[in-house]
């Protein structure tokens, strides 16, 4: 098995069909972008799962830390007025 430095991890995003967004499906090891693309094709699209692949080297992704989850996401919890369902639509309004 090759080491992490020789063969870094690439995250794989697959577009299931035209017009849909690319979705994260997993990761592969590869030495360069072309190999990452080929490996992603071989590992994740063998049964017609997609029509387009993106690969991005994992260390190019900036991710939020689990410790930040509180400050980042909790404020959304108690502000129900941020959800459209909070508002009752006045009678007679057709297009909102």
């Amino acid at each position, binding site marked *: *098995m090759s080491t992490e430095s020789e063969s870094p991890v690439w995250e794989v995003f697959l577009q299931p069909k035209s017009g849909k967004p690319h979705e994260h499906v997993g990761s*592969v*090891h590869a*030495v360069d972008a072309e*190999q990452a693309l*080929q*490996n992603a094709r*071989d590992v994740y699209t*063998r049964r017609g799962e997609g029509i387009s692949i993106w690969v991005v080297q994992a260390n190019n992704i900036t991710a939020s830390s689990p410790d930040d989850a509180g400050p980042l996401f909790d404020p959304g919890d108690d502000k129900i007025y941020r959800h459209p369902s909070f508002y009752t639509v006045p009678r007679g309004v057709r297009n909102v």
Partner: protein
Amino acid sequence: MAMEMVAKISESLDVAHHAQLAEFLTALGDDALILGHRLSEWCGHAPQLEEDIALANIALDEIGRANVLLMYAGQLEGLNRDQDDLAFHRDTVSFRNLLLVEQPNIDFGYTLARQFLYDVYALKLFECMGGSPNPFISGVARKAAKEITYHVRHSRSWVLRLGDGTSESHDRIQAAFDELWTYTDEMFETSESIHALIEAGIIPDGFLRLRVDWNVFVTDTLTEATLVVPDQDQFMRKGGRSGQHSEHLGHILDEMQFLARSHPDASW
């Protein structure tokens, strides 16, 4: 596998060409079958999980192609044999595959060098056959050319990576090309049957230019990979197309045919 084809390739051709085309398709089917089995030996052993899956994928493509080609060959020879009979109940002398594809895997570089030499040949061959006026031949050829386009992309990128990689990977794949080169002349051998099929327009005459197209592609890639293209004018090994095989084929067939011969007519 059940034969549920409605139309048969044998009904699409003058009976005069049946035996010739059966011989030709058997050779191409045997190439794919034997190489597919060789490649499948890497399953569980490749240097990386991803590459393991890639090689198994390619092996499955080869065997899928062998399935169709041998099915057509069986229909044309008219001896009531299907693709399974041809794959599992013939002996080495009846196989018509290139010597190249039965050579052992040796190491990863050797396997990929062998694959690259074959892939480029197969791509050019099936692209040419895609122009056949016979819908059975052009149909299988176009589908094959599509999947082999990816196989070339895969094996070519490994030739570049290993050739232009470390000194060890460079030396190993150079040695592989030097040895395997002696098996390449056989790919462009023609026979009376092939000439008759070209004359009848069943095989496009581009077939006779395969060597030139193959040479250009292979030379470009090896040069880009900082490898030396072996000499064209040297002793070349031949015999696969007439059933004179190296000892390696017998070992493959032992393993491949054992189950089917021990349990004839078994289905799974």
